[in-house]
């Protein structure tokens, strides 16, 4: 099949590729050594292959590599700056939200987008559950993951993560 030229930015670096249109973005990224992008379900159910495309979490297993043309892509590798992991990654370590670790890069990227989307806004456990509904974890039971997200948020006025902020559905 005819190769298609694409240009994109991956973790801050401008890149050019000749891609086969049959390739998923998951396959392209892994072929470049970005093995934090995990293949698990391969049908967009589990979120292990999540990266941010122009700041938005996307399942790369059901996203054609050619669609990345002109886009800015962030994977978990790029969140490490000068050998220092991001505040979100550190929060996952600090709260013990990592067990086998397979789902962690995807969860870290969804969390990174969530923290940036809700910066300066109230955030509670129900909102976090809804925002992370596309990432499956078979080890943690999610409570530690939610703790990690709350620990990642620098500004949560009026919300202690226990309800009361007005966002929680159960109130």
């Amino acid at each position, binding site marked *: *099949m005819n190769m*298609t030229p694409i240009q994109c930015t991956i973790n801050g670096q401008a890149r050019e590729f000749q891609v*086969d*249109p*049959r*390739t*998923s973005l998951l*396959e392209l990224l892994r072929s470049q050594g970005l093995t934090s992008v995990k293949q698990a379900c*391969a*049908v*967009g*159910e589990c*979120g292990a292959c*999540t990266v941010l495309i122009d700041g*938005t*979490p*996307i*399942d790369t297993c*059901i*996203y*054609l590599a*050619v*669609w990345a043309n002109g886009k800015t892509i962030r994977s978990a590798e790029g969140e490490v700056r000068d050998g220092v992991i991001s505040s979100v990654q550190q929060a996952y370590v600090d709260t013990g939200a990592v067990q086998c670790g397979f789902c962690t890069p995807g969860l870290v990227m*969804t969390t990174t987008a969530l923290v940036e989307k809700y910066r300066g806004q109230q955030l509670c456990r129900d909102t976090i559950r*809804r*925002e*992370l*509904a*596309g*990432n499956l974890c078979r080890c943690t039971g999610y409570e530690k993951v939610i703790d990690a997200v709350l620990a990642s948020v620098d500004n949560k006025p009026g919300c202690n993560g226990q309800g009361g902020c007005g966002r929680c559905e159960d109130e």
Partner: protein
Amino acid sequence: MYDIEHYYKAHSVSDAVQRLSENPDARLIAGGTDVLVQLHHMSKKYRDLVDIHGLPELGGITQLDDGTIRIGSGSTFTQIIESPLVRQHIPSLALAVSNIAGPQIRNVATIGGNICNGANCADSAPISIVLGARMEIATLDGVRFTPLESFYTGPGKVALAHDEIAVAFHFNQADYLDIGASFYKYAMRGAMDISTINCAAACRLDEGRFTMLRLAYGVAAPTPIRAKAAEAAALGKPLNHETLGAIRDAVVQDVAPRTSWRASKEFRMQIIRTLAERVVAEAARNAGGTLA
């Protein structure tokens, strides 16, 4: 790598229509959240693709001069949920599509794909039907319009010719002004699940009586359907428990649920009856009514 035999990146809607007309085996791909899953399962139906992903012509949510809300078929569910126009004028649509799958899928999947793949469980269908949506369809000879309500013709079948493309959904002001609407998705999980039954209602009240009710369901029949016997049971009647009970009892005539591994026919009927009452009551509250 996906087992794709022919791939063509369309440059415009007319280019895509032309390509479809020349290739009887060609299929459209937009968000890809259905097509690529089908390909992953080695489906042979999607080996010749015409790619309309991200075509600017299919994007955009705008208000036309006559007040109509026009939603491009390539709009993702996230774009619909976050659209100020949708939130202001047809918030029930934002509510309904926020129940679809999970965040990553909603960031890519399009309303055009959800409607045009003909699934009877499409969560955007019942609410769009009760809001009176019309589809703008590009053909070789120009544009035609069709009501969404008559778009579904059978299981997995829609009234779209092979060389036609759904371009946009139109929500007329006359259909959304002064209505109350509501939607409920019954599924086994809160996310990443297919509806066991979904239900949408839109109504108007005058002095506490129903002057208009539209009630629609998904998975209650081979296609998304209007529940016209249930609607008739409400017309002119006061908003009270007796009327809601009459709607619940009448809806049985409108539906034909099936048993599948997901749920039995009897269970689905129970959900259908319960949602008739619950969703209509919520729509009536949103129309300013008080349940006596």
